[in-house]
């Protein structure tokens, strides 16, 4: 678990393993298909209303709903990735996995790939839904939103690594950590308001959060219809930084949990 070897086949085996729960437990499909579907419908109706109106309130509303849709998407990935890990903890299977030749990096990679596949299914479903209802809306924001989604997915995954690391350190009493992490980051991710409304300290902190660049870009795009590539570039750099830090934190938590024996309590 601690050596630096990496086996793609073990990583794929774990990805398949984490996807079995979705296959065998249809209620998990509601999380990734039904909830986002209603949110995207809400967004679509408001977007259509705005395009037929000069009303400033509606325009602001569109920005908020866009923030809501993308934020919920982000938050769901964090929770789903942690839930995948918790499935094995609750089943009492995690120890069985940890005594195989699997390394930390393979475990993280397996968790991430399973989440990405689930989100791709979700995105495909939502895209078809938008295409069926408002094809013009899809061409308006469809392609640009893929770049934002990619940043949000990877940022959510890095945040879920921190969540899983905390569960490893402090046990299953922290199983709610996904919601807590999402809600605490939400303040400085600026999903529903521009960065400028934040007090000075939080304003500075928001620059460290890749999601804040995404939400700033979304609001700008809804007004100007022009994608801000420099914001995307900065978000990508911050994302890389965050991913590396979260993996290092996971490794630290794992080693610590071996020393304190808390790894055997999950």
């Amino acid at each position, binding site marked *: 678990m601690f050596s630096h070897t990496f086996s793609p086949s073990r990583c794929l085996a774990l990805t*398949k393993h984490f996807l079995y729960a979705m296959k065998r437990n249809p209620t998990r499909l509601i999380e990734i298909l039904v909830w986002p579907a209603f949110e995207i419908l809400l967004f679509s109706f408001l977007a259509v209303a705005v395009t037929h109106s000069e009303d400033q309130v509606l325009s602001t509303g569109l920005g908020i709903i866009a923030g809501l849709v993308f934020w919920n998407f982000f938050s769901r990935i964090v929770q789903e990735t942690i839930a995948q890990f918790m499935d094995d903890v609750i089943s009492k299977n995690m120890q069985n996995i940890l005594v*195989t030749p699997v390394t930390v990096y393979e475990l993280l990679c397996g968790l991430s790939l399973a989440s990405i596949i689930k989100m791709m299914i979700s995105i495909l479903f939502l895209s078809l839904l938008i295409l069926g209802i408002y094809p013009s809306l899809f061409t308006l924001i469809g392609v640009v939103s893929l770049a934002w989604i990619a940043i949000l997915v990877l940022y959510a995954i890095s945040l879920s690594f921190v969540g899983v690391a905390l569960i490893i350190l402090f046990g299953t009493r922290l199983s709610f950590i996904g919601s807590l992490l999402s809600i605490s980051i939400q303040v400085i991710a600026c999903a529903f308001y521009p960065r400028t409304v934040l007090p000075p300290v939080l304003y500075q902190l928001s620059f460290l959060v890749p999601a804040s660049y995404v939400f700033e870009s979304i609001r700008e795009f809804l007004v100007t219809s022009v994608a801000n590539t420099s914001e995307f570039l900065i978000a990508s750099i911050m994302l890389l930084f965050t991913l590396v830090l979260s993996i290092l934190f996971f490794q630290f938590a794992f080693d610590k949990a071996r020393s304190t024996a808390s790894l055997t309590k999950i």
Partner: protein
Amino acid sequence: MPFLDKQSKSRRKKSNQVILESIHIGKCIAGRVILTDVNFKLKEGEIIGLGGATGSGKTTLLHILLGLIKPDNGKVEVLKQDLELNRSQLLRHMNFASSSLKLSGYATIMENLSTFGELYQIANHSQKISELISLFELTDLVKAKTKIYNLSAGESSRVNLCKALLNDPPILLLDEITAHLDPLTVTQLKKILNHRKKQGHSCIFVSHKVDELNSFCDRVMMLKQGKIKYQTSKLKGNLNKYYR
């Protein structure tokens, strides 16, 4: 058990070689001394029984041997290599089953065993899984695509044993695995362990049941307050001295 024969042919020639060694292992957890200076050697083809009162440190010792817990003192050597330095590689030669663990609840028996077959990178794992399923009489449950959540404790232990034997491990660690097993399966397990022994495979068998420790194992180590207090070929006489 045809698959058990294949990998072990080269090992059969060797004998009395130390395959796993616990060297001055010590561990404190939350300020409580769990293990103190635990030394022992597991040889090829040997079955060691590990007994002791509840809280004597048996499971903690197994967890240290698997690298799940890092010892405060000492080290574990597997195949003459430090487990801490090469854990991922060395775990290929080990496996573990515990009555207190289960495989993934929402997945079926076959899906779970396939996952572990891939994690241990076993060539043609489907065939090995089929043989083990037949050996532990799980065929009907597999055909019915039963999920682990729906298995009884005994059935779940049999699935755990399939998982533990999947990579034909030279070192098998069993933690109270007979707790939920019926007598017929216990007899079957004894036959399997004896068969493995002839192939040069070793086992550490943790149990509270004195008759099992005596009948399954070449020697029995009794842990008392974190130390190996007794090593004997058979537990006999007044058992109080071993446990209290």
